[in-house]
């Protein structure tokens, strides 16, 4: 049984902090939680909301209804009241919200609170959110102790008086709501769970895998990696640098990686556009770095705080010319942690750029972990020469495509890493030798050598697997996958059996395996892109046309209801 709480108001109303207290109360009781922060690109004003879905089972999406709605302003009531479920509860700040013209669903209870006034009486208007938390906590059947526990954890450092005032505010909220029957009881169901957004998952994975350098320029929705690493980096061996722009970011990361650090940078589509020339340089000079691209609504400034999955072509096409790069798309924070490890490790071992594709929804939605994060036991830095034996050829032609490198500082193994085409010993062929008979071969050999990295890497990556037994195959990537999983379960209850394929490694791509899976099958592509970039990519790789698709590009994350609603007519078409 799941419960969904939504808090809405204006930017500056403390919507997120209100939501976070509630989300944490549940995760500390052992519930699975999905806490989605829908905000605007403004600091004050503009409609924002925070959605918390909790369950004893893993939570795979934000859901499609609201059980308890907290309206800090009137607009929240107008926009979200239609989603309140039968028997749900609407809590509203009576000084700002008038529910008389709002139609509430059947059996919905309504609690008016004067949180602001109560907070001022207790001693600070800032406590209004905690009053509201109390009212919601009562309505949702949370024990006051479990909320007090979060307050203690959050405000304990600020002193006893601060905690005491928060407790008073909380009690006041419970009191406001006392005449309403809680919709259900939420008590302890297991040990405390960590509540981790996707960005922190990537950062934790990279750190586990020995990350020592991170650079970024502030850009939503990648900024929280910068914030998190700036906070924990110094104690965990990571140099963190905010640069003057994304061009500086990627080049500093390349410099650090070439010097021998494990290096990562993060951005969103606009920043990635600035980085692309240098990413090609890393491809040519064979420098391994990780680039996290957290996608938001594009093009251009687009929808800064809304989600989309439409940077696929930009990542695939980053930089001029042909060169190998890898691209992995994790689907939830646990998977983001794993992708952080894999990307860090592969970039270093294969000496090439590796993208981790996230999106606003995955990057900033806090989710609990269903299982432990596996530790990294040892670091494999790949082919590194430590002592000179014979001629050192930095760009030696190898079967794997990977040439043993030296770490600057090592005697007798000096070389120049160039953005120009070069011979095995790093001598340029670009300026005076290009076009000469021997250089034609050098050029081809070097291009082919670099390209072989992806063939070698593909062999160590597991091929994707189809989930489910029968029915059409629904394909997605990244954060859409768990939502699709829940949608499929709902459809199965209605008698529509489907299967699911998640494309995690986009580059290198298991072309043969995927073609074999899809050949002769009915398949649909579910993605947050208006043009259907993933669908095009699948066709490009396999030569197979999708039967249909569900696309979302209004900026909001997929929900199971969105998928089932849009998929139902497609299935009927096929049946007809």
């Amino acid at each position, binding site marked *: 049984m799941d419960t969904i709480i939504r808090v809405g108001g204006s930017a500056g109303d403390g919507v997120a902090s209100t939501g976070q207290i509630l989300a944490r109360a549940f995760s500390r009781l052992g519930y699975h939680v999905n806490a989605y922060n829908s905000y605007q690109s403004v600091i004050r004003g503009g409609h924002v909301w925070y959605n918390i879905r909790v369950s004893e089972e893993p939570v795979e999406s934000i859901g499609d209804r609201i059980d308890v709605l907290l309206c800090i302003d009137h607009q929240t009531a107008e926009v979200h009241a239609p989603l309140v479920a039968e028997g749900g509860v609407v809590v509203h700040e009576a000084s700002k919200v008038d529910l008389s013209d709002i139609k509430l669903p059947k059996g919905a209870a309504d609690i008016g609170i004067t949180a602001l006034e109560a907070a001022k009486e207790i001693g600070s208007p800032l406590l209004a959110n905690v009053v509201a938390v109390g009212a919601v906590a009562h309505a949702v059947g949370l024990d006051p102790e479990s909320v007090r526990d979060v307050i203690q954890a959050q405000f304990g450092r600020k002193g006893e008086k601060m905690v005491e005032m928060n407790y008073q505010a909380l009690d006041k909220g419970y009191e406001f709501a006392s005449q309403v029957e809680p919709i259900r009881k939420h008590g302890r169901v297991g040990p405390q769970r960590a509540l981790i957004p996707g960005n922190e998952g990537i950062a934790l994975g990279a750190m586990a895998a020995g990350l*020592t350098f991170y650079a970024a320029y502030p850009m939503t929705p990648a900024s929280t990696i910068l914030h998190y690493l700036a906070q924990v980096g110094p104690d965990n061996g990571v140099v963190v640098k905010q*640069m003057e722009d994304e061009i500086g970011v990627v*080049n500093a*990361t390349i410099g650090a990686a070439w010097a021998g650090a494990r290096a990562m940078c993060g951005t969103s589509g606009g920043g990635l556009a600035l980085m692309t020339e240098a990413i090609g340089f890393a491809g040519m000079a064979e420098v391994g770095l990780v680039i996290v691209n957290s996608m938001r609504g594009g093009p251009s400034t687009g929808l800064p705080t809304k989600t989309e999955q439409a940077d696929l072509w930009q990542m695939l096409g980053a930089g001029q010319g042909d060169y190998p790069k890898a691209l992995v798309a994790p689907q939830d924070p646990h998977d983001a942690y794993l992708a952080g490890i894999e990307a860090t490790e592969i970039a270093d071992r294969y000496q090439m750029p590796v993208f981790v594709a996230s999106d606003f929804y995955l990057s900033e939605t806090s989710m609990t972990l269903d299982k432990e994060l596996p530790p990294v036991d040892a670091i494999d830095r790949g082919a590194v020469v430590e002592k000179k034996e014979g001629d050192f050829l930095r760009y030696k032609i190898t079967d794997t495509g990977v040439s043993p490198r030296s770490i*600057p500082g090592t005697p*007798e193994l*000096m070389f120049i*890493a160039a953005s120009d085409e070069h011979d095995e010993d790093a001598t*340029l062929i670009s300026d005076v030798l290009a076009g000469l008979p021997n250089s034609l071969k050098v050029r081809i050999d070097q291009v082919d050598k670099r390209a072989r990295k992806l063939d070698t890497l593909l062999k160590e990556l597991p091929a994707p697997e189809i989930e489910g037994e029968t029915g059409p195959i629904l394909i997605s990537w990244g954060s859409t996958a768990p939502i699709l999983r829940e949608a499929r379960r709902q459809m199965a209850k209605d008698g529509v059996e489907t299967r699911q394929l998640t494309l995690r490694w986009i580059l290198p791509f298991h072309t043969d395996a995927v073609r074999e899976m899809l050949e002769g099958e009915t398949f649909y592509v579910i993605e947050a892109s208006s043009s259907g970039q993933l669908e095009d990519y699948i066709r490009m790789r396999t030569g197979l046309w999708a039967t249909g698709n569900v696309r979302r590009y209004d900026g909001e994350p997929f929900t199971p209801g969105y998928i089932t609603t849009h998929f139902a007519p497609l299935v009927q078409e096929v049946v007809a």
Partner: protein
Amino acid sequence: MAETELTVKDLISDTKPTWCPGCGDFGVVRALQTALAELNIQPHDTAVISGIGCSSNLPHFMTPYGMHTIHGRLLPVAMGVKLANPELTVIGTGGDGDGYAIGAGHFAHACRRNVDMTYIVMNNQIYGLTTGQTSPTSGEGHTTKSTPGGNIEPPFNPIGVALAEGATFVARGFSGDPKHLQALVKRAIQHKGFALVDVFSPCVTFNKLNTFKWYKQTIYNVNEPPKDMDIEPHDPSDRARGFALSFPGQDRIGYGVFYEETGKLTYGEQDPTLHAGVNPVHDVKPRDVRALVEAMK
């Protein structure tokens, strides 16, 4: 292996310079090789990072580790190298187009950041490799392929910008005064913090205006001004006067040391991770993140 005293020869690679005969950049690479040899900084402990342009081919003509990066980006790359391994001596080498046009944004921030590195700009006031267009340091009226009617923009003032942005060593040399240039580069490498050495390094093929002869007639040593100018020798601790001298005066352009500030903490010395003794290259190891996960409960 025991590290013996270096000679200039140890710094010269097998790759023959591709510059035109008579190019000013020969003097710059020699000055750098001499300075490193005199300071006995081993080639394997040195990273020479360049951008794109004729002058940016320089790392290939030397034996240290090096990166020949992309146009305008050598400064962030060099900074990344230095922060990743503070044990390396990091030297950036590029041209005026690379550093003051496409890379000007990085230049301003590198100056204020005070990363411990040396940045040598071979300033020939023209785009050479692309066969002679106007550069950010081309003078007003300069007729080039891209300004056939004469350049209508005033030139970029790298010395003034570096001073305004807080660089702690700001100097200018001249390829035609090799002794002075060698001493300058040596002093820049020894300087703790960000050191700019702008070097007038004439392009003998595409700049028929700013020639060796022209420079010899036009420039003067600010630290040892000629008697006929009737000005006081410049004291490099005087930043305000250094700024004033960064502009042409009496139709002459100054070179020498405009500013030197010792004792200012470098970026690396203040970075909390590096300050704690971490070396991001040597300290790549698995991290136990369980406590961090615990903190998110």
